[in-house]
């Protein structure tokens, strides 16, 4: 059954109040740090003050002797993980790297790297005990910047990493963990054919996801090994699986309960605290709570990569791009795993190009290990590509949207990284952008307008769902994905639509790891797609069961029963004449017709539709201070089908605001000793309410035929275009092209000053 016809939908597409809303506006919702257990201890983590240092010794006896201290843990408590155990299920993380990221082994690889931890009866005593842990370091040369780290004589982080993707395997270890390449056609031939070639270098700084909730957990390990983990994460099954391998416990002994999550944006798709709290709890015999400080969040959890990107575009005078080349160098931090591969795939994915060559490098440095951040890798690559496309448009004298329309991907286009597009909405976002009222408005002095587009794959994967009809005919739907932005509402809406009942009759629950089958993490914009498929299928199975039960009650064949509007009806006159049976009617008689009515579904969802988007940004530049004000912003996105339009708009608006911060003010700033200088919200400057205008949204709906309701992932692609949109707007306002993020006032003013004599000469 398909629900793709919008006109037939009663619940999907409406805007009900989210079921967890009241708890969240009254302060009752329980987040990671809100859990308390009897006898609970407070854990704190000792961290390296050095960017790179050999750990010669860790002495904990003085800390243990402090009254109130109940346990201390060091690397010695953590098992080494053999090569065949370094991944779990389909999860991509290297658990040996994660283990050593949770607790340093042999060397501290960045400032803030955990080296020991303590549990005590109060936070103050735990804090005091940290000072009593004595760590002897031998500081080592360190390397922070991506190109410096690639030099042959650069300080080496790991002596067992040899660049992969290079044939033959290099003889010497390197900070370049991986090289990747995507090619289509012949770029050299393409450039030879081009009338105009633009070749530019762009750089970005590491930026943090900056969720407002710091990482937090409570872990209780029983003397029999049975363990409960309560924590804030993007995946309770991820927490369970990763922790089990890092501490060396069986999965069946761990129950992971998902707390409400106070933002993640990808940054809570790996573990930092749970294995440490596990060790402290195991050693003390008491539950242990660890809550990171904001400073620890910045110093020790994942930002995304800083990067250097070289882009070369060749075009004919008519605007046709005939060749595109890029080299992407992404920082991975202290362990391999930057999102450079995604960057390589996404950068040119909006375009229909005959010749493409993209090369990517995953580069280690003495910074915290990067973690996923909203469309990981794509915003960095797109800042470069979409800026360069704008430079090309200006060079050719062609309207930026028109240039994108001419070269834009459409159904049938084969992307350089493999897929041939079907049912994509990129061109429709361009058409919709052209039709906005925004585009028709005029700009004043020192104001400019920028256009940029973006692409993100979106994800499918493993999801479980259970749909239970309660005795009174209400419905409980259990999913396995932490609800990071209102997805429980969408789940309940899809179930209500299938069952034909009002939204309020369906209550969604995020189950713990013992309450629902395995589900991959909330990430990749996958929950409404994959989780939505699972809950829809579970509701469809329930409908089949309800029809059977009605058939029993009527003593007719199940095929003679049809289900609509929340009721069972006889299918035509031949089936007999009966009053319709509601869900409540059937539920109340369930014991007599076969027992409880429920269905559980496990799927590995395929066919997520890709997400394309086009943004329009207006800025005003203060030429004397370099300050940039965002005047107006419109995001146009193919959302497939908006299940709950308010939360889709919210994703678009939130992505834009994060992108504006990335563009203008956010960056990791290190001192000359490799220590982070801005580990707080004072100097790590995320946009505040007064920095932003209202953010207009246009939802283009090109339904994804692989999803029962046509949904595509919507959460990530909105962060892809803003950096280039802002840069292009600044260029439009000032004639100055900024190619380095963030486009901070000092940077812009310096660029304006450099250009001033030119401008005066021109005038």
């Amino acid at each position: 059954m398909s629900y793709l016809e919008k006109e037939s939908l009663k619940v999907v597409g409406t805007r009900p109040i989210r079921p967890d809303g009241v708890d969240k506006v009254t302060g009752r919702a329980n987040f990671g740090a809100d859990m308390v257990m009897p006898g609970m201890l407070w854990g704190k983590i000792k961290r390296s003050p050095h960017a790179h240092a050999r750990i010669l010794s860790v002495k904990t006896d003085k800390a243990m002797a402090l009254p109130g201290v109940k346990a201390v843990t060091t690397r010695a408590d953590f098992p080494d993980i053999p090569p065949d155990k370094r991944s779990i299920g389909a999860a991509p993380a290297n658990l040996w790297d994660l283990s050593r990221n949770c607790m340093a082994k042999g060397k501290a690889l960045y400032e803030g790297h955990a080296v020991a931890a303590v549990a005590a009866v109060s936070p103050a005593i735990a804090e005091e005990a940290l000072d009593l842990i004595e760590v002897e370091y031998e500081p080592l040369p360190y390397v922070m910047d991506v190109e410096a780290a690639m030099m042959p004589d650069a300080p080496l982080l790991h002596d067992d990493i040899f660049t992969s993707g290079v044939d033959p395997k290099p003889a010497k270890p390197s900070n370049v963990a991986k090289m990747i390449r995507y090619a289509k056609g012949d770029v050299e031939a393409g450039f030879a054919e081009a009338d105009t070639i633009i070749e530019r270098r762009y750089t970005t700084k590491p930026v943090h996801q900056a969720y407002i909730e710091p990482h937090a957990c409570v872990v209780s390990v029983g003397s029999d090994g049975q363990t409960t983990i309560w924590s804030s994460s993007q995946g309770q099954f991820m927490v369970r699986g990763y922790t089990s391998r890092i501490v060396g416990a069986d999965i069946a002994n761990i129950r992971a309960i998902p707390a409400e999550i106070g933002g993640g944006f990808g940054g809570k798709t790996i573990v930092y605290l749970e294995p440490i709290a596990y060790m402290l709890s195991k050693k003390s015999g008491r539950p242990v709570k660890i809550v990171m400080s904001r400073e620890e969040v910045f110093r020790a959890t994942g930002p995304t990569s800083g990067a250097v990107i070289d882009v070369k575009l060749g075009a004919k005078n008519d605007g046709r791009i005939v060749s595109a080349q890029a080299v992407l160098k992404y920082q991975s931090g202290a362990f391999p795993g930057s999102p450079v591969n995604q960057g390589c795939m996404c950068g040119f994915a909006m375009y229909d190009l005959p010749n493409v060559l993209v090369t990517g490098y995953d580069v280690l440095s003495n910074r915290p290990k990067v973690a996923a951040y909203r469309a990981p890798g794509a915003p960095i690559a797109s800042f470069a590509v979409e800026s360069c496309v704008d430079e090309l448009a200006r060079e050719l004298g062609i309207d930026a949207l028109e240039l994108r329309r001419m070269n834009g991907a459409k159904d049938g286009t084969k992307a350089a990284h493999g897929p041939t597009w079907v049912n994509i909405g990129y061109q429709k976002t361009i058409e919709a952008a052209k039709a906005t009222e925004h585009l028709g408005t005029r700009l004043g002095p020192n104001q400019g307008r920028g256009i940029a587009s973006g692409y993100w794959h979106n994800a499918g994967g493993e999801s479980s769902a259970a749909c239970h009809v309660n005795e009174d005919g209400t419905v409980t739907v259990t999913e396995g994905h932490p609800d990071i932005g209102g997805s429980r509402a969408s789940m309940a809406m899809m179930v209500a639509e299938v069952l034909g009942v009002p939204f309020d009759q369906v209550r969604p629950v995020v189950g713990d790891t013992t309450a629902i089958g395995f589900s991959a993490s909330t990430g990749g914009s996958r929950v409404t797609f994959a989780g939505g498929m699972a809950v829809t299928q579970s509701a469809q199975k329930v409908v089949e069961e309800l029809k059977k039960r009605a058939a029993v009650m009527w003593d007719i064949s199940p095929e003679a029963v049809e289900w609509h509007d929340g009721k069972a009806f006889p299918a035509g006159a031949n089936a007999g004449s009966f009053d319709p049976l509601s869900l409540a009617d059937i539920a109340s008689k369930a014991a007599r017709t076969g027992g409880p009515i429920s269905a559980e579904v496990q799927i590995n969802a395929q066919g997520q539709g890709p997400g394309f988007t086009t943004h329009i940004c207006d800025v005003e530049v203060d030429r004397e201070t370099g300050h940039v004000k965002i005047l107006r912003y419109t995001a146009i996105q193919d959302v497939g089908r908006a299940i709950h339009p308010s939360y889709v708009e919210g994703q678009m608006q939130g992505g834009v605001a994060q992108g504006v911060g990335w563009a203008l003010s956010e960056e990791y700033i290190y001192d000359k000793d490799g220590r982070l200088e801005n580990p707080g919200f004072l100097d790590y400057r995320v946009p505040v309410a007064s920095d932003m205008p209202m953010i207009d949204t246009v939802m283009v709906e090109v339904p994804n035929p692989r999803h029962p309701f046509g949904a595509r992932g919507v959460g990530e692609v909105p962060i892809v275009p803003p950096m280039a949109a802002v840069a292009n707007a600044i260029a439009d306002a000032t004639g100055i092209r900024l190619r380095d993020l963030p486009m901070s006032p000092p940077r812009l003013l310096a660029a304006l000053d450099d250009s001033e004599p030119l401008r005066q000469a021109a005038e």
Partner: protein
Amino acid sequence: MPNLSFSAPTSIDEAVKMLAGATGTAKPLSGGTDLLVQLRSGRLRPDLIVDTKRIPGMIGIREESDRFVIGAATPGVTVYDNKALTQAWPGIVEGMDLIGSEQIQGRASLAGNLCNASPAADSVPAVIAARATCVIAGPNGRREAPVEAIVVGPGRTSLQKGELIVEFHIPKPKPHQSDAYLRFIPRTEMDIAVVGCAVNVTLDSNGVCTDARVVLGAVAPTQVIVEDAAKALIGHRLDEPTLAALDAAAQRACKPITDKRGTIEYRTKVAGVLARRAAKIAFERAGAR
């Protein structure tokens, strides 16, 4: 902080006695918006915290015939809710108002902002530009000092052990006198000033400047009174040559550093820009009186 004590005395004498008699580090607490951050981060490990807010007179604004008296722990909201002061010294009130968020405004005080001794303190330049003084209580009684004498370097003040500021005296403006304060921050709110500039001017009836004080923040280890900038204004109307001279004098007075908030070049240039802009506002206000 295993040995931290907290006390909330109800008289100045009691507070002075506690601060003077404390072993180790003793800190007066007014709004706490800097102190508690330092306490939490471990940068400051005091032995005694003395809450000054329960001392009569420490919070509140009193208008006398020739001056305003502002209690040292008076929070920002009380400052900008005071109509007479806002009328008299809009620049001082702007400076106070710019410190942090609405939440911070409910707590942050003039004395705290001053004694935190940051060169970027937003409330300080306009107060110095108005030639305000502060009254300091200590073990040896009371003394009065110009506000610019308090901060001697980043994080360092001239206050002696046992001393605390109890009130500020701000003279009332003369006819055709007014002020303005501007600061530059990367965002629109919540940042520390990258550059701050207060301009306080007195005009004659023809709009010619007869007296001026220009004070810069965040461009040197302490706030800077820019004598040359005042000279550039005195005897002139606010025409382009005067503004250019002011701009140049402000830039010459800068001895900034490059840090996470701005570069030397940036701070210097913007100091000139803000001096121009603040002077325009101050002249307009003074002229309108």
